[in-house]
Structure formats: C-alpha cells, structure tokens
C-alpha cells in the first residue's frame, strides 16, 4: 500500500508541475485507448502520463503509469515513446518496459473518413498493467498473478485507425492486431470512441473553466480473440466515459471511469492523465 501511495504522490507532483508550466499548444487525443487521426504538430513534443488504477477481485489494487513522449516528426508522421511502470499493493513497484509507436497519415487531405497507419514495437514484461489496449484473450485473471518480470514480451502491434470529424463530433474506430514475436499467434482487438467539445464557438474572453475548454465523450474497447479462436468468446470489454479539460497554458487533464461489460472484465477501472505540450522544441533548444 505504501508503494501505491508513493506512486500516487509522484503522479500528483508531476501533474502540478505540468499545470504550472506555460506554453501555448494543446495535446491532441481526447481518449485514453482509442486513437483519432489527429497528429502531433510538427516540431512539438508532448510529455505526459496516463495512469490506470483498479482493485481486482481476489487480487491486490494496482496503479500503473505510462509516461509518454510524443513528437511531431512531420505533419503526417508522429512518433511516440512510452515508458511503463506499475505499483501493486502488498507486492512491489517496478518498471515494466517500453513501447515505441509511429503513426502515419497516408492521405494528405481531410476526408469523410481519415485513415492512419499505426505500428508499434513493445518490449515489456508480464507485470505490465498499463492497459493501453485490450487484445486477444486479455482477461481479469491476468491481474491476479503476483508481480513477475521474468517473462519478456517483445511484440509488434499494428492498428488501422479510421477517424472522422463531423459537426464538432469526433468518431474514431481502431482495429488492432498484435503479435508476440516469440512465435505466438496474432491477437486482435478493437477500440471505438466518440467525443465532442461542450461548446463549438470560442468566446472572445480568456477563460479557464468554460465549456469550450471541456470535451466529453466515451470509448469502448476489448479483445477479439486470436488467429485460431477469433471472436468474442473468453474476451473482455470495457465502456468508459471520458472528460477532458484543456487548461489554458498547454496542459490537458483527462479522467475516465471504465466499466467492465462482462464477467471476464475488470469490474471498474479509473484512468487519469495529464499532458503538456512543448512547442517547437528543437527551435527552443537551439535558442538556448
């Protein structure tokens, strides 16, 4: 429990630091699991943390973090590094690995549906609980095992991201295929999300807690089995409302309570995230 409290304190300190820094642009994604077609602005670096906490029935409560560093290489290419860690009550706190992802927009104009190609390499261990996606037969009994980092997972993950912006709404669908490079079969999953700012017209005055700075939505995600057992049998699924608050000064806070939709799912997950965008980081470094 002490390690969990330490981890929570570290998250709170990071969040406060990010809030009091100041820049101009804002991070992109409203969701925690689903990706839209919005890319990082070229030259900008987004730093942030996405956390998830849950108390599995019959297991120990945990708090997992994914520290993210997202860079806009080009307007059509975004690269991102995640460093994962977790703390489990009555067990331990540990670093669980890294992920490196790249997203590409093959079509250079806005369309009714905008595809993005996503490829990720991850090198994590079996203690990872960051839940950045749910694939295959990921189920709640996976959270009951004691922390053990001996089993390494080197995995490739591909996503087809389809996303539309219509009358202020964002509608995104992700199809996920993941493969453990140690020769295990392909696993599949999905994520869909819908969100909208609470006001479509900006006010002329500066404001902090006003409707134009808030977005609300929901996402649903889950596994679709694997190559030899494709389908919904023995899979877990979640539905999660999401609220995003863009604090003036480049910081974004997000909250999302997630509810398991079947008996294989964790009953309740709570996600929270804070991110901060540093504009034109290369130019800033050159100036200093």
């Amino acid at each position, binding site marked *: 429990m002490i390690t969990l409290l330490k981890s929570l304190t570290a998250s709170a300190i990071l969040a406060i630091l990010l809030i009091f820094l100041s*820049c*101009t*642009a*804002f991070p*992109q994604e409203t969701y925690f699991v689903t990706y*839209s077609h*919005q*890319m990082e*602005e*070229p*030259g*900008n670096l987004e730093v942030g943390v996405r956390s998830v906490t849950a108390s599995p029935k019959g297991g120990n409560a945990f708090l997992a973090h994914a520290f993210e560093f997202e860079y*806009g290489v*080009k*307007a*059509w*290419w975004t690269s991102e590094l995640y460093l994962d860690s977790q703390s489990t009550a009555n067990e331990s706190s540990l670093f669980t690995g890294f992920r490196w992802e*790249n997203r*590409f*927009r*093959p*079509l*250079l*104009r*806005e369309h009714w549906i905008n595809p993005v*190609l996503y*490829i990720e*390499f991850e090198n994590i261990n079996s203690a990872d609980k960051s839940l950045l996606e749910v694939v295959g037969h990921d189920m709640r009994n996976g959270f009951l095992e004691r922390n053990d980092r001996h089993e390494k997972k080197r995995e*490739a993950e*591909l996503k087809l991201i389809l996303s539309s*912006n219509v*009358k*202020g709404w*964002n509608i995104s669908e992700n199809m996920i295929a993941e*493969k453990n*490079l*140690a*020769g295990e079969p392909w696993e599949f999953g999905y994520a869909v999300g819908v969100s909208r*700012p609470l006001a*479509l*017209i*900006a*006010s*002329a*005055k*500066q404001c902090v807690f006003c409707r134009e700075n808030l977005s609300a939505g929901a996402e649903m995600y889950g596994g679709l089995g694997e190559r030899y057992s494709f389908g919904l049998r023995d899979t877990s699924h979640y539905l999660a409302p999401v609220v995003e608050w863009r604090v*003036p000064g480049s910081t974004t806070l997000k909250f999302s309570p997630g509810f398991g939709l079947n008996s294989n799912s964790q009953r309740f997950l709570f996600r929270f995230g804070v991110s901060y965008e540093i*504009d*034109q980081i290369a130019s800033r470094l050159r100036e200093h």
Partner: protein
Amino acid sequence: MRRWRVAVLGFCIALPALAISIEAGDGRWQANVPSGARQRPNPMANEASAIAAGAKLFQRNCSSCHGKQAEGNAKHPDLHSDRIRGATPGELEWLLKNGSLKNGMPSWSRLPEPQRWQLVSFLKSLN
C-alpha cells in the same frame, strides 16, 4: 522470430517512404481548393467578437509557429501577406481544415468549424 523482426523493420522503413512519395506529388494548396469551398462565405465576417475570439484561438493554436504577431519566421510564413489578403474566406477555412501536410502545416479539423471561421475572421482583420 527473425522473419518477424525483418518484416517489422521493413514496415517501419516502407511506410515513411510511401508517405514521402505521396507528398512529392502534391501541388500548392491554393490550387487544390475545390470551387465549392472557395466560394463559401464567412458566416462571422466582420464580427468584432469573432475577430477577438479568433485572436485568442490564434494565440492558443498558431502563434508557436507563426509568431505572436503572425509575423512568421524562417520556417513559417508571415500571415501579413498578399497571399492571405488575396485568399477568399472559403480558401482560408479549407486550408485550416485540411492543412498543407507536405509543407508542415497541420490539419485543424479538430477545431469545430465555427472556430475555424473565427480564425479566418482574425486572419482577414490582419490584412
């Protein structure tokens, strides 16, 4: 296992190459604007509140590249220009929505359409 590593590495290299080849075939943004989009009027033209809101949105989303006074720099264009002056409101809104990805201008389709028109009102007020 080695086969998969090679496949993943190949995919990592091939995707940017594909995107670069697509980029090389695109032309200047203004020539690409469809005539229907070009002729769309700004529903908030000359509204003082829209210009003020557009100025706020500009500082929040655009000034990091184009400068706080929209003066531009070596990499990003000055927006006090003949091109912006001569562009129709519909062309500017189309540019904000689509971006010019090959030239580094991101798409601002995530901003709701009324906010893009507010930005257009501000850009026109500069010129």
